[in-house]
């Protein structure tokens, strides 16, 4: 069976493989916790949204994430996105010990206060 594509590290006790999906899921779970951030559909950022809205690239042992989001109306976009980037980077690095090169974020739309689920 083909192994999922991911990063490999050599440890003393053996080899560690981390699949891209794992990194994407960690990122999505972090994003789901941030108030004012939604999936581009306007729904809450669920695990189901991971494959469609979070891309993980592995470049020479470093992680680069790209995600698409919607923001709640009234939020200051750069501040909110920077908070998201910081939290995603911190959590992915903490949980995987892989360096995160960048978290690119595309804001696709604005969600009205009553719209967000």
């Amino acid at each position, binding site marked *: 069976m083909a192994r999922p594509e991911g990063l490999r590290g050599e440890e003393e006790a053996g080899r560690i493989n981390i699949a891209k999906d794992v990194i994407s899921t960690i990122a999505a779970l972090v994003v789901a916790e941030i108030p004012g951030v939604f999936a581009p559909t306007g729904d809450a950022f669920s695990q189901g949204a991971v494959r469609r809205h979070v891309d993980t690239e592995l470049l020479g042992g470093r992680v*680069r*994430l790209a995600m698409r989001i919607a*923001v709640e*109306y009234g*939020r*200051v*976009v*750069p501040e909110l*996105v*920077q908070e998201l*980037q*910081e939290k995603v*980077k911190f959590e992915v690095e903490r949980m995987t010990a892989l360096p*995160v090169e*960048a*978290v*690119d*974020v*595309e*804001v*696709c*739309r*604005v969600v*009205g206060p009553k719209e967000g689920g």
Partner: protein
Amino acid sequence: MTFLLWLEALLLFVAAVFAGLGAAGFNFSLVLGSATVPELVVRGVLGLFSAAFLGGSSLALVAWAGRVERHRPLRQPGPRGLIFITPYTVTQLASQLLAQELETTPFRIRLRPQGDALSLRVFLSLPEGAYVPELAERLQELLTSELSQRTGLKIQEVQVVVHGTSRTG
């Protein structure tokens, strides 16, 4: 957007068919009633058709490129990665701001990215009793300051186009 690409491909195909027919070595002399149309004229007409479809195809391509440009997300660097904001997001923000400001007055927004900045054009009907220069200045100030503050993007210009009057009540 995909429609324009298909249209472009179709027009290009038809242009190629006409060009191919014109260039082929067939005998194209036509008999229309009692008159015979010379081969050179037939080839010329096919060439004209081909050129017309090629022109149409080019126009579709230009329209498609324009649309791609208008929908291109605007990029700004952040400390931990890039931040992209789609023009649709900015249009939504501008619409919410204008809806609060103008209440029932109908309006329409067109947005054009200019490098990493934006220019906006607002089309609206003049609310009853409103003074155009004062209204335009208020809207320009509102959109420029609020949009730059909320998105971090540079707003190059805001044009207000009054295309009619509206009556309330």
